């Protein structure tokens, strides 16, 4: 099972949101990283055929998704970034309605809804109207609807936004457990969410793919690019202007900075054992 993007391009007038993207997604979790405006949501909208493409193809197992139409949508689970919901419906009715739209038989839908409400920790509030839910609760309902019908392709745009750490871990682990036999695309700003569960990470910048690799290869690739060094508070501004600065922290009464880049200041020390995906993000995608 594979999902191929071939020369995929989307232009809004003169602005190119996605520029001849070529990539193949296979089974497992692909984390998509990119700053705002990098083209992540455009790609998601093209994958779900919510906007018309300008050029290129999206093939699911060799057939264009436009040709597959409903057949592709019946294996698709999508959670959009913007929370769309009917505030007058309860979580249970909303999920049931979405199950209907996904053409899931009623009996199967009831079982799946039960299970997903448990997983998303919404069982006790299932009869509460969505209008009365907090942002995090709505996020969980939307995630639950995306997972209805055992979809083969799951597209999750910021699934853990607004969740508390405990819920995030719970949901993250659940998504991780789903990865076998599915293509899961997970776009997020929270780097730690994809760091531990992604099989591969796609990095996007200005509508281009700037890198695709496994998380450990990506962190290895920046081993010689990250340094920590002490810094006088009055020098901080100058360092920030000259280098890509990650964390600024206090250690033993001194201010330290974590600097990422090809050219690093003299002094300080490399941290090959403590590299994170944030360093990768900053190195590849930081301005």
């Amino acid at each position, binding site marked *: 099972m594979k999902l191929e993007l071939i020369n995929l391009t989307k232009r809004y007038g003169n602005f190119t949101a996605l520029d001849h993207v070529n990539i193949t997604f296979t089974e497992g979790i692909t984390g998509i990283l990119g700053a705002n405006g990098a083209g992540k949501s455009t790609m998601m*909208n093209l994958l*779900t*055929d*919510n906007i018309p493409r300008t050029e290129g193809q999206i093939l699911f197992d060799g057939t264009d998704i436009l*040709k597959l*139409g*409903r*057949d592709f*949508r*019946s294996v*698709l689970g*999508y959670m*959009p970034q*913007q*929370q*769309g*919901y*009917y*505030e*007058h*419906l*309860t979580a*249970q*009715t909303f999920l*049931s*309605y*979405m199950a*209907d*739209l*996904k*053409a899931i038989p*009623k009996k199967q839908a*009831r079982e799946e809804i039960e299970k997903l409400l448990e997983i998303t920790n919404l069982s006790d509030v*299932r*009869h*509460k*109207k969505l*209008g*009365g839910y907090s942002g995090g609760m709505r996020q969980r309902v*939307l995630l639950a*609807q995306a997972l209805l019908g055992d979809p083969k392709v799951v*597209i999750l745009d910021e699934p853990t936004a607004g969740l508390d750490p405990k819920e995030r871990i719970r949901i993250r682990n659940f998504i991780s457990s789903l990865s076998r036999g599915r293509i899961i695309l997970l776009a997020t700003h929270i780097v730690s969410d994809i760091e531990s569960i992604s099989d591969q990470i796609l990095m996007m910048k200005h509508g281009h793919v700037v890198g695709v690799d496994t998380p450990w290869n990506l962190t290895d690739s920046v081993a010689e690019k990250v340094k920590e060094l002490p810094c006088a508070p009055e020098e901080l501004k100058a360092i920030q202007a000259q280098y890509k600065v990650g964390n600024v922290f206090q250690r033993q009464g001194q201010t330290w900075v974590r600097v990422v880049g090809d050219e690093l200041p003299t002094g300080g020390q490399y941290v090959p054992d403590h590299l994170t995906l944030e360093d990768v993000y900053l190195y590849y995608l930081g301005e």
Partner: protein
Amino acid sequence: MQELRRIGSNRRLILGLVLILLVNGFLFVREQRVQDYGLNMELPNASMVLLGDTFTTVQEPVDPGAAYQRYLNWLDRVRGLSLPDAASMLEREKTDLAAKFAGDTDTEEDHLDYVAVQTLQAQIQYLAGYGDRLANIQRNKENLLTFSLFNDTDSFAGRNIIKTAEEFEALQGVALTLGAGGAVDALLTFPLSDYCLLLVLLGTVLSFLEERKAGLWSVVHASPRGRLRLAVRRTAILFSVSVCGVLLLHGTDLALGFSLYGGAQDLHRAVQSVEALGMLPVRTTVTGFLGQYFLLRIAAAFFVGLLLWLLLAAVHNVKYTVLVAAGVLAIEYSLYTFLPVQSAFNVLKYFNLFSYISLSALYTNYLNIDLFGYPVGIRNIAETALVPLCLLLASLCLTVQCRKKPAAGRDLLGRAAYRFNGITDWVLCRLPLMGMELHKTLWIQKGIVITALLAYGVSHLSYTANIPLFSSVEEAERQYTATLAGPITEDTFAEMDAIQDQLDQVLQDYEDAKTAYADGQLSDAAYNLQTYNASAARTQSEGLAAVRSRCVDLQMLGAQHGFTPWLLDETPFLSVYGSRAQVNQQQAALLALLALTLLLAGSMACERQSGMTTLLRSTAQGRGTLLRRKFLLTVLATTFVWGTVFGTELYTLLSHFSISGWGAPARNLSMLEEFPLNCSLSVWLALLYGYRWLSLLCCGVLALLLSSCFQRMETACIGTGIVLLLPSLLYAYLGVQVLRPLAVLLPVQTMPLLLDHNGAVSEAVTWTAALLGLSAACSVWRLVGEGLPRSLSETA
């Protein structure tokens, strides 16, 4: 200022206000027309006839607008005269006019004069009798106090009699004068403005609570100016809205009233000169009354606004505010409307929110209620209590605004609501996709309210029009038509011949009686009876001749077009579908269009407003299937609206008239002589209602598809209304002929396309083609846009 700016920038509120003002003004003018500008329209030649199963007064129509102008002319002529002189002048005129009616020489001008004169006479009669009325109150006091039941002056009854007499004694010697009082009358008897004002106040108060809905209550409450200062400003805003609301709504009514009823020149008169205010025991002029009335209206509006604010602000959970408001208003309205005046709890009737909403009743009715054994006037209670109540409520509102903690509320109804939702969930989860679409239309898009309003509107529609009889010959013709109804055969003519023979015999008997009478062989009474019979026989003979002529015409027409001639009583059809019923049909069609527009305009926009579009489109059935369900919903909604509006019309036809001859060819009806098909009446009716259904369905499909062009339900309703309703309204009510090709009212109404003989059929065909073509094209466009159904895509 920021708070005012925030509320002022609430587009929904401002749009609603503008809409309310327009609707209020439009309905005010319409109401005056419906009420014939307060004129007594009865002519002396009016008669009661059995129309269907009910007796109805029929007379020649009189244009109320022209009659009111004539009334003003007559008013100018008698204005300078004393009341007795004016009365005798009008009496002379009326006698002259009555003679014209008796001699059958009356003209349309005479009708206008007659209506104007008799209205003025009634007015003069009231003014002249007012002194007697006051004296009567004093006499009643003396008389009643002699009865043992009332002579205890320490009881409520005794005190009430004395108080009433004392208050009206102050009016002794008040000089009432003749003038045009229609504007003040109209202002006092148009309750819609009161309810519109209530809506404006409710909207304003709800806008105060927006911070709760938006989750900003804690932020506002924690800010330095978010408590007392904000509350004071909101109180000031509520007062300003009360002032502006009263001036805009009731001020508009008064201004429109002055323009309709001949200006504001008679405002210096004693207020009792206006008949509606005859029971107001206050010495003042109409101007003085209007000043006092508007001030009290503003204070009452402020009071109502404060009360609503207090009630809604006191409810912690914003979800229940509307529920609480509706509950309180329903209880208050029930007490105000249904509690009998004699009830021991009648204080609740008059010390009631709706006493302040329907303020006019305090001035047009004189009533004292029992307050601890003392009679207190309902007007006095309302006026005296108003200022202290406003102050009390304002301070309570300020306290609630300052002291109510955003995070401290207990959701008392929450648990019950959760359980209730559990039950509804059980039902909703078992509904198919179509059922959920219906649920969304009824509850999310508030279709249930529109349905209720439609039912209310239909219950107020009139489906039958009077078909006047201008002479006894016409009456006889109608009777013979009913008697001889059926296929026109030789037997019909034979039957007519037989009747004619009987009538001839009566005439012959009369001739014999005349001779006998001349010879002195017949008494006066017997001769008079013969004369009367002969006169009736002549009339009936003329009526029968008209029926015979109609039969001959129908035979020729039938031979020409190949249908069986049939004699039919056309009254039921003329009454329901004829040209005189066009206004009824226009209103019914407009109501159907309005209901359909409101039911369907939010259908697609609701998905966008709730941000669901992308999610729906990513599901297997969220495109073509969902759209097809929405089309099906359109068919259902159309059928429901059509059934409610036009089904009631058909029911009216069938229940009010006993119709025989459903199998008669439709072209036998004079109004359908040009109808292109040879079909029976029942088939014609099926075609008529089918065509209306189809036209409505096309409008429904257009409303559905137009809905997808809008982001919000409100704008979708307005936009769809502009496309589907505005051209029809402008064409129907303002006569803008250039909009006729866009007035979808015509195909929905259908009959104007059939009654207008000038190319009517081709216009009906054009309309059908245009509507079907447009809705089909739009549907295909949407279906293609949403993705082809799987079967088609597989073929492709």
